């Protein structure tokens, strides 16, 4: 199921194909094992940890809601962005406490950083990154991308065999989170720690200074929020029960469609 099949676009499945000898039971749903155990474990651990990091981070932002570029930035300096005070329902804790927010943030940061490091390493070892998440060259062609964007905009989701694999927009979104946003959050977080600055002076430098690292930290966190909104929307639209079950048990029911026969045949 997970092999390097040529990428099927949504219309290709309409093409005529070999009809199997025995007629298929159309009512029989086709179940595939979609998510490995490592993916499922990390997904839910990360979901909880990111929620805590994000909400405690918003409280930390409330302590000084101004963002700067460069090494320095304080009230007399020019901020490129002045943030609002985030409300209590969005922060940990819900009433102002920089100390408690930092306690949550730097304690849970261990799990956050370790989980992404272990999951990335394991996903390289077991081939998840290379086989499932790597966008293929053909998928990145403007024509293919455009077709995928149109299909998403029309809420026309892959069915049958195509639904067992990630489409290119999914791959780009997951790679963006896994390889860019989450690692950058860890690195820019470390770049703000004064003792680590002494140990790794190059760390804040690669981001252009401690305040730049702080700005990038916030931008990446915003990226995670945007991803979350799109992710939840797509789960709801694509069938929340099936999607959530596949991330809990691993089993995914291939959505019946014109491609159903192909999937069953395979």
């Amino acid at each position, binding site marked *: 199921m997970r092999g390097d099949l040529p990428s099927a676009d949504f219309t290709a499945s309409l093409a005529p194909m070999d009809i199997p000898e025995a007629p298929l039971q159309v009512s029989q749903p086709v179940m595939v094992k979609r998510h490995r155990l490592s993916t499922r474990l990390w997904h839910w651990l990360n979901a909880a940890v990111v929620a805590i990091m994000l909400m405690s981070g918003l409280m930390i932002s409330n302590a000084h809601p101004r963002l700067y570029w460069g090494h320095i930035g304080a009230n007399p300096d020019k901020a490129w962005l002045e943030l609002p005070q985030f409300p209590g329902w969005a922060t940990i*804790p*819900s009433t102002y406490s920089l100390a408690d927010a*930092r306690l949550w943030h730097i304690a849970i940061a261990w799990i956050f950083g370790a989980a992404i490091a272990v999951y990335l390493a394991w996903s390289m070892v077991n081939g998840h990154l290379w086989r499932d998440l790597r966008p293929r060259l053909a998928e990145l062609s403007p024509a293919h991308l455009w077709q995928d964007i149109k299909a998403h905009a029309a809420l026309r989701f892959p069915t049958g065999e195509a639904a067992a694999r990630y489409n290119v927009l999914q791959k780009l979104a997951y790679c963006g989170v896994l390889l860019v946003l989450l690692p950058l959050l860890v690195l820019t977080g470390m770049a703000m720690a004064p003792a680590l600055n*002494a140990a790794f002076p190059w760390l*804040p430098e690669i981001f252009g200074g401690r305040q730049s690292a*702080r700005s990038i930290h916030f931008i990446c966190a915003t990226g995670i929020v945007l991803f979350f909104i799109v992710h939840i929307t797509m789960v709801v639209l694509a069938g*929340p029960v099936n999607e959530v079950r596949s991330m809990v048990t691993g089993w995914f029911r291939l959505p019946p469609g014109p491609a159903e026969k192909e999937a069953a045949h395979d």
Partner: protein
Amino acid sequence: MTDQFSRRRLLSAGALGTGGLLLSGCDRLSQPGPFRSVLEAAADAHYGVQRGIAGDALAAEFAVSQMSPVFRANGNTNVKGHAEWSGHGADQFARWALKIDGLVLRPLDLPLDALRAMPQRAQITRHDCVEGWSAIGKWQGPQLGPILKMAGLLPSARYIVFHCADRFGSTPYYESLDLIEAHHPQTILAWAMNDKPLPVAHGAPIRLRAERQLGYKHAKYVMRIEARSSLAGLYGGKGGYWEDARGYQWWAGI
């Protein structure tokens, strides 16, 4: 279909409930108790790990051109209700002396002129406030390590405590460092800032600079330095004003 519909409702209700629980749960878990202790242990783990990683590494130093045009003064920017400090302030601390005592062989009284006459270290460093802002300034003063050597630390000394003249309400400000941070080459008693005598707003007559730590460790208006075997029994017992009052981490390297 009804089955799926109800499951869907159950799921969304569950998601909403989880969000609400997370919030109230986190507030409850922040209260003193076993879970908070676990969080505190995890936060404190940064101390040991960063000690191991950072070793004796120096904090970054900057060029004059990178200094903040205006260096914000925060926390207490003046001293109220401390007769001794106020008396000295009137004559530019000419007769003021820093006390060094506690677990030392030779308690010292070091006048400001004596601190100025010692070998000096000047450093242009970045000051990082726990709130998130940073400013770069130039600090000058004697290193703390040689002063502690002059006083002769007793083997039982583990912490260096900085007693300050400023206070929040009736509680005096204080801070503390372990011996490694106290002996770090960039840990100085700054009497000058940006090539001028330390302004009152920034902690005259002297302010501690511990460049690998967040701003609240950099005690201002230091009057007395005490070597101790333990932080227990001193004010709230957590080694600093903000640590006692708000629960900030004693290790401020992160």
